[in-house]
C-alpha cells in the first residue's frame, strides 16, 4: 500500500512538472523579485526532496544492502547469490567460449 502511494506520488510529481497554468504568467512576483513560474518550480524542487525522503524511509532496498554488505564481510562460495565472485566478471565471461566470439 505504502509503495503504491509512493509510485502514485512519483507519477503525480512528474506530471506536475508540466505546469501549463503558469505558462504565460509572470505575475504575481513573489517576495518582490521571483516570478510565479520560477517560484512554483523552487517549491517543486523542495517537494521532490521531501518525496525522496519518503522513498528512502519507506522503500529502501534493504535486501540489496544486506546482501552487498554481507558479501563484503565474507564470501560463502560461488553458489550463494550474494557471495562475492572469486574473479572479476571479465574473467567469468571469458570462460564462455560462445561469448568470446560474439
Amino acid at each position: 500500500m505504502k509503495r503504491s502511494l509512493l509510485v502514485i506520488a512519483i507519477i503525480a510529481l512528474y506530471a506536475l512538472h508540466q505546469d501549463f497554468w503558469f505558462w504565460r504568467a509572470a505575475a504575481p512576483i513573489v517576495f518582490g523579485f521571483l516570478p510565479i513560474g520560477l517560484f512554483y518550480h523552487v517549491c517543486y524542487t523542495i517537494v521532490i526532496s521531501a518525496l525522496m525522503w519518503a522513498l528512502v524511509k519507506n522503500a529502501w532496498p534493504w535486501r540489496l544492502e544486506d546482501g552487498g554488505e554481507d558479501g563484503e564481510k565474507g564470501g560463502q562460495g560461488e553458489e550463494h547469490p550474494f557471495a562475492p565472485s572469486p574473479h572479476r566478471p571479465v574473467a567469468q565471461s571469458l570462460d564462455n567460449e560462445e561469448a568470446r566470439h560474439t
Partner: protein
Amino acid sequence: MIPALFVFAYLAIVIYIGVFAFRRKVGERPAEDYFLANRALGQFVFLLSLFGTNMTAFAILGSSGHAFSNGIVTYPLMASSSALVVPLSLFLIGTRVWAMGKRYGFITPVQLFRDRWECGHIGTVITVVQAAMLVPYIIIGVMGGGTALYAISGGRIPFWIGGAVVAMVVMVYVFFGGMRGTAWVNTFQTTLFLLFGGTALVVIGVGMGGFGNAVNDLLASPSTSSLLTREKVSPLFFFSYTFIPLSSINFPHMIIFCLTAERMRHFKKTVILYPICMLAIWLPAVFLGVAANRATEVPSIRAKLEARQTLVSQGAALSPEERGELREKSAGDDILLRLLDHYAPLWLAGLLGAGIMAAVMASDSQILALSTMFSEDIFAFYGGKERFGERAQVVTGRVFVIALTVIAYAIALKFPQPIFDLAVQYAFSGYSAMMPLLVAALFWKRSTKWGALASALWAAASVIAVAVFQFLVKTPKVVWSIGGVEVLARTPAGTSVFGFLPVVPMVIVSALLMIVVSLMTKRPSEKAVGRYFLR
C-alpha cells in the same frame, strides 16, 4: 588580473588536494584503488563528489547564458526536471549497480553488461559508443576553462592558454590521484560552488540596486517581459527536456561513482539532498542570467543586448554568416563573469572566479572514467592484464589520461560552439537513449545481449543522424510534414521530431529495440540471470 591570481592560487590548492592529500599506500588491488578509491568513499565525500561530478561548466556558465537568452524557463527545463529524475535513478538504479559491483567486483558498467548478458565483443561496442559520446562532455570542461580564465583575467589570458592551463591541472591530479584524488577535489569544488551561488546572488543584487527593480523593469518592457514566463518554448519542447536527465545515470562516470561508496546507505543522504543542491546551484545562476538583461550599464552586456536586438529586427534581411556572427556576439556563456567583473569588488571577484573554475573543472571524472573504461573494458578484457599485470594496467590508464586530455584540448580549440548546444545535442541525448540498457540489465530477466547491441547502435546512429541533419540543414524550416503535421523540422535551437526534441524518439525507439530484439533472440543462461535476480 588580480582575480586571475586568485584563480591560480585555487588551481594550486586543487593540485595539492588531488595529488598529495589523502594519499594512501596502494594495496593488493592497485586497479581498484586507482579507479574506484578502493570502494571506500564516506557519506559526505560521496554526496558532494557525486553531485560535483554531475555539474559541469554547463551548470553554471551554460545555465546563466541560457537564462540570459531564454528567461526563467531554464530552471524548470533543466534543473527541476533533473532534481526529480537524477535522485530517482540513483535510488532505483544506482543502489542496484552498487550492490552488483560489490558482489561481483565490477569497475565499469560494461563489465556488468558483459556478465549479465554473457557477451564479449558486444560489450566492446557499447564501450566504444559510450566513449565516443563522453568526449564532447570533456571538451566542455576545456572550453569552460578557457572561457572562464579569459573573462576572469579581463581578456589578458587568451582562450587557448586558459583551456590549456585548466586541462593541464585536471590531467595532473587525475593522473596522480586517480579516483581518490578526483573525489576529494570534487568535494572541495562542490563546497566552493555551493557557496559561490548565494554569494554571487547577494553581491550582484546589491550592485544592481536590488533585484526587485530589475524584475519590474523586465516585466514593464514588452521586449523582455517574456523572459519572466515560459512563452518562448512550446509545451512539447518543455516536456521533451524531462528525458534529458535520464542521461545522468548512464554516463559512465556516474555509474563508476556509484561503485565508490563504502556502504549502500551512503546513497540515502545523496538521494534526499540532491534536489536541494540543484536548487542552491541553479536558482542563483538562472536568476542572475535573467537579471543580466537589465544590467545595461555593463558595456559588454550592453553589446550583447544590442546584437540580439539587431538579430530580432533585421535577422531576415541578413546573410547566414551575419546572423551567425550576431548570435555569437549575443551568446551569454560568459554573462555571470561579466556581472562579477562589474559588480563585485576585485578580491571577491577573484574568490568567486575560483568558484566558477570549480564548476568548469568537472571534466576530471569523465577523463578518469574513460581511462577506467579503456584499461578495464579493452586492455584487461583483451588480455593485457594477464600478460603484463595489474600495475601495468594502471600505468596504461594513466597514459590514456594524458592522451585523452591532449585530444580534447585540440578539439576544444577547433570547434568554438556554445557550451550548451554541444552538451545537449550530442552527449546528453545519446546517453538518455542508452537508458534501456541499464534498466533491462537490472530489471528485465528476458533481455539479451542482442537487444543491448541494438539499443546501443541505435543511440550512436541517432546521435550521428541528428548531427549530420543539423550540419546539412542550417536554416530553420520544416523538412518533412504529413497532412499538415510537422514530422521533421530544423529549428533555431536544433531539430524537432513531431514537435519534440530528438531525445524523445531516441529513447522510445531504443526501448522498443531492446524489447523486440530481446524477444526475438536467445535468452541468457539461467545461471547468469540467477546471479542478478533473486527468487
